[in-house]
C-alpha cells in the first residue's frame, strides 16, 4: 500500500485519541487504525470533559473527533482541546457530510475533516498531512474548497 509505505518509520508510534459517542464506532475505528503499525491508539472516550483530561494526561499527537460527543458537540470539544493544547492536531472523522458541520468543525480549528464513507486510507493520509502541518479534507469534500 502506497500510503503505508510512504510514511517513514517514526522513532515512536503516533499517539491517537478517539472521541466518539458511539461505542461501535470507536471499536471498529480502533481495529482499523491498529492495522497501521505506526499508530497507537492511546485512549478513547465518548464524553467532552473526559476528552479534555485524556488529552492532558495521555499527550496524544492527534485527536480524532466525531460530530457527536456526549455533553457537547464535536466542534466545541475540538475548540476546547485546542484552547488548552494548541499543539495537538485535531482530525474530524464522521459520517456527516453536511457543509454546515464541516464549516463548524473548521471554524473550531480542526486540521482535517474525513468522511467515514471514504476509503479507510483517507484517515491515514489525513493524520500524515496534519502532522506535516497541513490541513486536509477528504477528496469527496473538494466541492467545499
Amino acid at each position, binding site marked *: 500500500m502506497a500510503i503505508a509505505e510512504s510514511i517513514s518509520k517514526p522513532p515512536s508510534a503516533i499517539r491517537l485519541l478517539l472521541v466518539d459517542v458511539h461505542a*461501535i464506532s470507536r471499536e*471498529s475505528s480502533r*481495529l*482499523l487504525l*491498529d*492495522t497501521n503499525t505506526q499508530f497507537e491508539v492511546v485512549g478513547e472516550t465518548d464524553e467532552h470533559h473526559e476528552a479534555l483530561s485524556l488529552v492532558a494526561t495521555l499527550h496524544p499527537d492527534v485527536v480524532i473527533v466525531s460530530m457527536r460527543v456526549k455533553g457537547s458537540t464535536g466542534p466545541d470539544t475540538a475548540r476546547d482541546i485546542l484552547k488548552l493544547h494548541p499543539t495537538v492536531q485535531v482530525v474530524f472523522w464522521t*459520517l456527516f457530510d453536511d457543509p454546515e458541520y464541516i464549516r463548524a468543525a473548521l471554524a473550531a480549528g480542526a486540521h482535517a475533516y474525513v468522511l*467515514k464513507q471514504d476509503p*479507510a486510507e483517507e484517515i491515514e493520509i489525513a493524520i500524515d498531512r496534519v502532522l506535516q502541518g497541513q490541513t486536509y479534507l477528504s477528496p469527496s469534500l473538494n466541492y467545499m474548497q
Partner: protein
Amino acid sequence: MPNSQIAAKRKAQMRLRLLVILLASLPLLVAVVWVVWMVRDLITEMQKNQVVAVQSIVLQARKDELKHFVQAGSKVMAHYCAPGNSPTKLSHEGKELLRHMDFGDLTDDNYFFVYTMDGVNVMHPRLPEIEGKNLWEFKDAAGHFIIQTLLDHARSGDHFVDYVWHRPSTGQIEDKLGYVEYVPECNLMIGTGLYLDYMKEVKTFIEKQTDQTIQRTRDRIVLIALASLFVVAAGGLTLNIHEQRVANQKLRRMAQQVVESQEAERTRVARDLHDGVSQWLAATKFTFETARLQLQRGQADKSEQTLGSGVEKLQEVMRYVREMSHKLRSAMLDDAGLGPTVEQEGREFGERTGVEVSVRIGHIPALQKDVESDLYRAFQEATRNIEKHANASRVDISIDTDKAGLWLRIADNGKGAPSGAGKHKNGIGLLNMRERIERHEGEFEFHSEPGATRVTAFIPHKYL
C-alpha cells in the same frame, strides 16, 4: 379515525342546533297565529257592535228626519184641505205641491204618498198610474196587506212601519221604513218611506274599515314576528358560526398535532437511521476494510476473525433494519389504520415482486387494536408465503365488511401449497394465522390447489 369522528360529531351538533332554533321558532309562530286570530276575532266583535251602534244612531237620525219631513208635509197638506173644500179632497194645487216635494239626499226615492183612509191612492209622484186606484187589497212581496197596515199605523198614531216595497229607482223589492200620519183636516194619510239600503252601506263601510284595520294589524304582527324570527335565526346562526369556528380551530389544532407527531416520528426515525443503521454500517465497512488492510499489511492471521466480526455486524444491521421497518409498519398501522396500511403494502409487494396485485378495500369500521394487528399479521404472513413459495403472477387482496363481520381475503394463482402444509415448517405460519384469527372467535380458512390458493380470515362483528 379521529377526523371523521369529529366531523360526524360536528354534524350531529349542527343538527341539534337546528332543532333548537326550530323549537324556539315554533312557539313564536304559534303565538303569532294565535294573536292574529284573537285580534281578528276582537275586531270583528267590535265591528258588529259598531255596526249596530252606528246603524241605530243613523236610523234614529233618519227616523227624526222622516218624522220632520212628514210633519212638514202634513202641515202643507192640511193647508190645502182648508174648510170649504171637501174633507176628503185635497186641492189639485196641494196635491201637485206635495208631488214635487222631494227631499233628502236620495232625491229619487224620497217622496210623499197620499192615500184615502179606505185605501185609494191620491198621489204618488213615482207611480202616477196607481193614482185613483184602491190598493186596500194590495200585498207586498211577503204577502202582507201593506196599505192596510200603513193606514192602521196612521190611525193609531204609531207612525213608523217596516215593510217591503218595489223601489222605483232600482226596480228591486227592498226593505223600507215608513212614516205615516193621519191628517184629519183632509181625512187623508200622508206618508213617506225610507229605503234601508244605506243601512247596508253603513255596515259595508264599517266592515270595509275594520277589514282594513284587521289586515293592517295582521300585517304588522306578521312583520314583527318575521323580525323576531329573523333575530332568533340570526342568533342561532351566529352561535352556529361561532361553534363551527371553535370546532374548526380544534380540528386544525388536532391536525397540527398529528403533523407534529408525524414530524417527531420522522425525526426519531432519521436519528435511528443515523445513530443505529449508519453507525453500524460504517463500523461494518471499517471491519471489512480492516480485513483488507490486514491482508495487505502482513497481518493475515487476524483477518479471518475480522471478517467474521464484519459478518456479525452485518447481521446486526439486518436485524436492526428489520426491527425498524417493523416499528414503522406498526406506526403506520396505528396512524392510518388497517386499510391504508394493507393498500400501501400490497402496492409495495407488487412493485417489489413484479406480481400483478389488486387491492380492494371496502368500508372498515373502527377496529380494536389487537384485532387490527392480528389481521395485519395474517395479511403479512399470507403475502410473505406468496412471495417465498407461490411463484404467483397475480394476487387479489380484499377487505370487506358485511352484517356478519369483516372479511380479509388473499388469493393467488401460484403453484399452491404442498399437501399437508399445516404439518411442516411452512405450516407454522398458517397455524399462527389461524390462532390469531380464532382468538377473536373468527374463522380462518386456507384452501390451496395448483393455480388457486385462498386465505380467508373472518372476524365477527362483536369483535370489531
